[in-house]
């Protein structure tokens, strides 16, 4: 077992910690009886005013640790160890004391802000309730304070927004409202538990900037929990890396990111695709996080560690102090990591090649919903408007943009699941089905949510063989052989053929979905956010798999994603969508190297980078994408564009080619970069 070691602070050694966790353990009741330990003795100090990043993949225990600190876990959970806040023992507090601490001196904001707000009460009601609780305000002062609180977190029209229900607001707005509520108690510590995970990248940048500003203004300390190393690097002075319920490495962010010593920390950094260059091959760690209660003996990371030695399996290494850093490893790395092998991304196929898909001025309009066919409710929604592109054989085209920009709608139209209301789709002759009809042997669609895509009551082999059966390909024996070949192709153990989906991890399920999509040997794959549910280390494995399959089978790939880093790794060409239109398209090298459209530039700038020195200096893009119900006239980006001119408000810019292969829809961009 670990020895309790208080970690020395990075700054102000003399100041006593604001929040100190000693040997925190958390046990949950296991399904089959007994207890399962999910947090194995965490020691953490947070000093006044500092920002600590807690990073780890899902299931590493980072959120549970935070909830345990405020005793917000369900009653079944058993918490061990000591939690001291400003000298007071939280574990021994009575209900009243604990309640005035929560939301008072310690505030917390959660992931998925829309779900963390009561859906049946207005924002104003919920905000006023907190103001009454923590500031004892009444009457006009209360209303004025509520308006001021929303204004302070950058919500426009605060008096109006007070009357809104949470479902009227976007995710970013809800998170701002949550932050406003958290600030009502004038906290000296704010715990932000994955505060931007459910948000779009430009909104994420806004929220992170807001949190930094508020912190500067109030001097509060902050614990930022995130799975995203980029987010941590940009916001935190100190970082603790968690793995399987333990801290494995801790120290100043600059040092940890410059010379990660723990193999897991290094693996995490290497797994993350970068936006500024393409690594020849993401160094994916094998395997996945172990299940709580099924930890391997000794070092929990040993089964995935390329430096493991027999001693690692014998005993769990201790968290040892080295100056300002702490490390739990017997054979750590020394020195900075080797520079990655950077490659040039090929556009994939020659542009003169055979077109697989040609989209011309594609549009999709949803008619307004009607009640009993009589009353039109709302306006027609133009989800996609005038989208044109050509996808050549063997090419990988990334379609990127924030949620609601229409990228998934385009994917569905190409797959034949939706019929365009305007424009035309032309396909290579081998797709011998009418446009608007799915042609599974021509293109397969791979979705997000691998769990939802698989039937929980069917064995893996049966699910992979299903398309073959539907199309009456081969006999039982040849299908069986094909299933084994596919399992091998996606890197799954053939023994899993007879397993049911619930036995598989998220990454394995996504591999099964890929295998099934490839069963009919389609020349083309349409992947809609296929990795967004996966952890970084697992995501890296599946990205590499997809890249490899694409190259080996010469697949044509239409790749839809909100994650520009992933698109950078996989795609030869990229099209950026905003509010239903393509605003820029270019070969990946060009688009990431020298973006021309103001929106593309803002989007790239908003992607958090784990590279030191890449701390954000820019102002995040203001505002939010327009509602598809009421897109602004002219250039749809103009209300948010720093370069907008009067012309932009009236005339929609057409896509013009500025460089070879780089086309931009902007009145102002000249391509002189």
């Amino acid at each position: 077992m670990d020895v309790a070691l208080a970690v020395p602070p990075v700054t102000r050694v003399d100041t006593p910690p604001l929040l100190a966790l000693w040997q925190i353990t958390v046990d949950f009741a296991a399904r089959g009886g007994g207890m399962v330990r999910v947090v194995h003795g965490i020691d953490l100090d947070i000093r006044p005013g500092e920002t600590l990043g807690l990073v780890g993949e899902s299931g590493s225990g980072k959120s549970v640790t935070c909830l345990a600190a405020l005793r917000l876990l369900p009653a079944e959970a058993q918490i061990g160890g000591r939690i001291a806040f400003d000298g007071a023992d939280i574990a021994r507090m009575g209900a009243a004391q604990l309640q005035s601490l929560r939301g008072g001196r310690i505030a917390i904001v959660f992931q998925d802000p829309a779900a963390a707000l009561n859906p049946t009460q207005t924002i104003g009601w919920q905000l006023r309730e907190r103001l009454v609780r923590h500031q004892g305000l009444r009457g006009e002062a209360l209303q004025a304070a509520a308006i001021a609180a929303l204004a302070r977190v950058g919500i426009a029209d605060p008096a109006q927004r007070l009357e809104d229900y949470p479902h009227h607001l976007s995710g970013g707005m809800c998170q701002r409202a949550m932050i406003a509520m958290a600030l009502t108690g004038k906290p000296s510590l704010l715990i932000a538990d994955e505060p931007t995970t459910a948000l779009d990248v430009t909104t994420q940048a806004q929220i992170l900037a807001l949190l930094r500003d508020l912190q500067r203004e109030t001097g509060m300390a902050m614990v930022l929990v995130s799975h995203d190393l980029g987010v941590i690097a940009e916001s935190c002075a100190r970082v603790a890396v968690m793995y399987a319920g333990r801290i494995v490495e801790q120290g100043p962010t600059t040092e940890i990111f410059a010379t990660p010593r723990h193999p897991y920390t290094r693996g995490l950094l290497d797994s993350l695709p970068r936006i500024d260059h393409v690594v020849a091959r993401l160094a994916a760690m094998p395997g996945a996080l172990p299940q709580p209660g099924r930890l391997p003996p000794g070092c929990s990371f040993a089964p995935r560690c390329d430096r493991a030695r027999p001693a690692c399996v014998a005993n769990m290494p201790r968290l040892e102090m080295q100056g300002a850093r702490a490390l739990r490893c017997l054979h750590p790395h020394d020195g900075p990591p080797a520079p990655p092998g950077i490659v040039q991304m090929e556009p994939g196929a020659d542009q003169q090649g055979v077109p697989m898909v040609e989209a011309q001025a594609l549009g999709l309009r949803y008619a307004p919903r009607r009640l009993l066919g009589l009353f039109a409710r709302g306006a027609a929604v133009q989800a996609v408007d005038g989208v044109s592109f050509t996808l050549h054989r063997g090419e990988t085209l990334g379609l990127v943009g924030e949620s609601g920009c229409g990228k998934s709608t385009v994917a569905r139209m190409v797959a034949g699941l939706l019929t365009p209301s305007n424009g035309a789709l032309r396909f290579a002759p081998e797709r011998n089905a009418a446009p608007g009809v799915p042609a599974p042997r021509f293109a397969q669609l791979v979705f997000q949510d691998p769990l939802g895509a698989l039937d929980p009551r069917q064995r893996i082999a049966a699910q992979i063989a299903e398309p073959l059966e539907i199309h009456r390909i081969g006999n039982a024996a040849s299908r069986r052989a094909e299933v084994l070949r596919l399992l091998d192709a996606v890197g799954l153990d053939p023994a899993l053929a007879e397993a049911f989906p619930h036995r598989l991890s998220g990454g394995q399920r996504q591999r099964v979905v890929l295998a099934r999509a490839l069963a009919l040997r389609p020349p083309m794959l349409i992947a809609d956010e296929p990795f967004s549910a996966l952890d970084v280390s697992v995501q890296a494995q599946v990205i590499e798999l997809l890249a490899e399959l694409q190259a080996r089978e010469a697949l044509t790939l239409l790749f839809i994603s909100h994650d520009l880093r992933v698109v950078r790794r996989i795609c030869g060409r990229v099209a950026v969508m905003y509010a239903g239109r393509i605003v820029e398209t270019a070969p990946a090298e060009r688009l990431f190297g020298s973006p021309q459209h103001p929106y593309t530039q803002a989007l790239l700038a908003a992607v958090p980078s784990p590279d030191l020195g890449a701390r954000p200096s820019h102002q995040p893009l203001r505002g939010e994408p327009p509602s598809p119900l009421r897109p602004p006239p002219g250039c749809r980006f103009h209300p948010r564009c720093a370069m907008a001119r009067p012309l932009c408000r009236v005339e929609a810019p057409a896509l013009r080619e500025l460089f070879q292969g780089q086309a931009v829809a902007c009145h102002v961009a000249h391509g002189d970069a």
Partner: protein
Amino acid sequence: MNGAWMAAKLLRAAATLLLAVTVVFIVLRLAGDPAEILFGDNVGEESLIRYRALWGLDQPLGVQYLLYLRSLLLGDFGLSSQSGASAWQLMMGRLPYTLQLGGVSLLLAVLIGIPAGVAAALARGSLTDRVVMLAAVSSFCIPNFVLGVVLILVFAEQFGWLPSHGTGGIWHLVLPALTLGTGWAGVLARFARSAMLEVLGQPYIRGARASGLTEGRVRWRHALPNAAIPLVTILGFMVGGLVAGAIVTESIFAWPGVGRLLVDSVKLRDLAVVQAIVLMVAATMVAANLVVDVLSAWLNPRLPAATGA
């Protein structure tokens, strides 16, 4: 709430009602010639023809349907073949009794079932929880006729504390209301418990706790109103099924309500009265549904009706 939504709901309710009326009309005509049913073999062919002409039964079916609709709109549900009185008035004479019994039973069920279910949810896994759930399950497993008979045997026959049948003072209401209300209370307790547990597991409840709100506020101002949304739907079903649900109980306790009138009229093949009651039940269900929709929209701002769009 917005006008178009309300208008659409009213239209749908009217359409449902029309459908019910049409079905009743068809069933009545399928049952045979009303003149023959009424008079049987006792009268001559000539009187039958005269009777048919008088009531328009010799007209084409479409015309008959329109005539039928017109008479319903005028409040004319026909005459009882037994007493010759207006079927409508016969039914309306009994309705207050059913409303009295049903209303008291429902009130009892709400006042006992919902607090019990909520208490069980708040003390999940405790002894209270298990006792409440055991009581709830047994209460709706016991059929009303068994419970009614047992209550009569114990409180009327054995101890003679309460009257076993008929109407009179408030004491006459106790046993039938208990009989009818117990099962409903059990159902409500189960639903209240699961609705409350579901809401208590939502992230916004954790969010409310995390902002230091007192446990009382979290429970009563955040959890309960959200848990009430599904309960309103269940209550609507109960109100809609009130007459049908009361049949057995009214028969056991000789309670002069609509349920018993229905049973008697079916026995006597008094079609006009049966038809009036069936249409009334249909109308109650439609009305209850409408009220549920309006109440849900009021409780749940996420429903389309509540948004002004």
